[in-house]
């Protein structure tokens, strides 16, 4: 129910500039994901939106109103922390009800109804009387999300909510969050993650941050297909995009040639040659690491049934229309 606008937003801790001037508009109901390397300022940016951190300069605008000086509780936001941040001395019910009990004008009945509704959405109703320490990690995370839902926020903020969960639970909770977003299509969600699979699967739009600045904003496919820089190209997609340099790429008229592993095929008449260093078989498909004389091995995705041996010499060809050309400054040549 709220659009968020950041205007030339800056944040410094003492003399140390963390956020260096960010302009961004997040539409209402949008699922925006912040990704970027560790220390680039994702959490700080999220905390600026939440109001937990003071803005050094620039404007934070919710629904056209400047909220720089508005307290977190008055911004209509809810936040899910990486560490869950459940109140350890309160039952699950009290954890979820805490925010409502602090607001005036909610009857006990009203609070109970809202807590139970949120609990049902997340299937945590059986645990309402338990203490957080009596729950598993996944249940705790659902309680944390439930606590946020109970407040009926206009904006949902997540700071790496899945990073303390194991792989299977991470996938399950990710799907749950996606479903939640579909159910609550009026609620704006801002989500911080390291994990580019989370970013690709959840986001309406992804904002790639680097060193306190926005590198690119766009839909997952835009970022995947048209990265605005070498940095984004290397960051989005898994495995990482391969970068080729040197004489091999001169013919293409660029400094660096980018090609994803899934956009290359192994064929006897391939234009590049490489020695197999290692092969990883994931069942459905396999990643072959080739030494092509580049700084890093080149990864090629092949079918899971293919058999490749270390030391074998293979020839590969890229899909011409999937090549990404970058100039010496790392900008794409279109």
């Amino acid at each position, binding site marked *: 129910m709220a659009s968020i606008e950041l205007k030339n937003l800056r944040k410094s801790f003492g003399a140390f500039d963390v956020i260096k001037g960010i302009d961004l508009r997040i539409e209402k109901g949008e699922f925006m994901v912040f990704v970027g390397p560790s220390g680039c300022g994702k959490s700080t940016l999220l905390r600026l939106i*939440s109001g*937990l951190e003071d803005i050094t300069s620039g404007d934070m605008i919710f629904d056209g109103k400047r909220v720089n000086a508005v*307290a*977190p*509780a008055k911004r209509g*936001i*809810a*936040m899910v*922390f990486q*560490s869950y*941040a*459940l*109140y*350890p*001395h309160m039952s699950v019910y009290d954890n979820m009800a*805490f*925010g409502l009990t*602090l*607001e005036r004008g909610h009857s006990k009945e009203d609070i109970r109804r809202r807590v139970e509704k949120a609990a049902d959405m997340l299937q945590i109703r059986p645990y309402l009387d338990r203490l957080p320490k009596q729950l598993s990690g996944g249940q705790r995370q659902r309680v944390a999300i439930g*606590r946020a839902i109970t*407040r009926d926020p206009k904006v949902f903020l997540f700071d790496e909510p899945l990073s303390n969960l194991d792989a299977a639970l991470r996938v399950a909770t990710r799907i749950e969050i996606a479903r939640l977003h579909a159910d609550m299509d009026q609620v704006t969600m801002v989500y911080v993650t390291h994990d580019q699979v989370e970013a690709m699967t959840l986001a309406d739009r992804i904002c790639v941050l680097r060193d306190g600045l926005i590198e690119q904003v766009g839909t997952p496919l835009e970022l995947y297909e048209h990265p605005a820089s070498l940095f984004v190209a290397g960051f989005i997609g898994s495995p990482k995009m391969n970068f080729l340099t040197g004489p091999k790429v001169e013919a293409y008229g660029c400094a660096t040639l980018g090609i994803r592993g899934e956009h290359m095929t192994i064929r006897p008449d391939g234009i590049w040659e490489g020695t197999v260093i290692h092969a990883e078989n994931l069942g459905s498909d396999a990643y072959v690491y080739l030494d092509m004389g580049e700084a890093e091995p080149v990864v090629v995705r092949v079918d899971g049934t293919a058999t490749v041996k270390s030391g074998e010499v293979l020839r590969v060809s890229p899909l011409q229309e999937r090549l990404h050309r970058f100039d010496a400054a790392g900008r794409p040549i279109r």
Partner: protein
Amino acid sequence: MSVLPTSAPAEEPAHVWGKKLEPYLLVLPAMLILAFFFAGPAIYNIALAFQELSLFDLGREGRWVGFDNFAEVLTDPSTGQSLINTTVWLTVVTVVLRLVLGLGLALLLNATVFSRWKLGWLVRSLILVPWVTPPVVAVAAWKWLLDARYGVVNQFLVGIGAIEQGIPFLARTSTVWGAIETMLIWRELPFVVITILAALQSIPSELREAARIDGANEFQIQTRIVLPLLKPVLAVITLLTTIWTFNNFVYVWLATRGGPGDYTQVLATQMYTTSFVDYRMGAGAAVGVVMSLIMFAFALIYFFVIFREK
């Protein structure tokens, strides 16, 4: 599926016994030291409480008198006064004040404004100064500060015109307990502050932030999040300081020797006086046993009440 009968264990080989004995052997030295320095004297003290023994009889066996010593101690009206002094003026007042002041100071020292302040570390270190001062030195210094004629406190009060003549704080019944309590609290407060501060710093900042987002103001965060989380540490501090203070001897003894008259006599000083001034070792030991029993009962009830939930 068939269930096989479990075979009876074969005779245990010697090395298994060695393994079983190992933990006992490891704690043996500590146990011996405890037995020698703690259990020994404690048992001797209990035995002494049932004997009549003056200092001149030391080395000889005392005369066994059954519960006579206890009867005497418990019917002596001054014991009742000592008990009230010990419980109320020495212990309850100072424990409560230490908890309140300690909590307040710890919350202050832990506040964000304070941690951002450049000299914050200095203040935190200064807080420790009383704690590293030996109690004997602390009392001597305070007696000097409170001296009727030369003491800084009186000179200051006279200087600003609050009083005309210096007050002999330790010689007046109206001020003597306040003076003793001041010395004790000054010396013992840092323990409380540092312990609470450590507990405060172990509370993750995300909890406060989550509460802020939930709409709690600073006061609500302290009362509804922080205080409940401090409960365990406050419970332990209360137990420890109560026992230490109830049994404490140095502050009253060094400050007033139980005076003026025996106005500030506490159980610990009464025990000492009975034993080593009146030379009635048996009766003195009986006071000691009574003190132990009271603290034992206190600890039991306390554990029962505080830790019942678990």
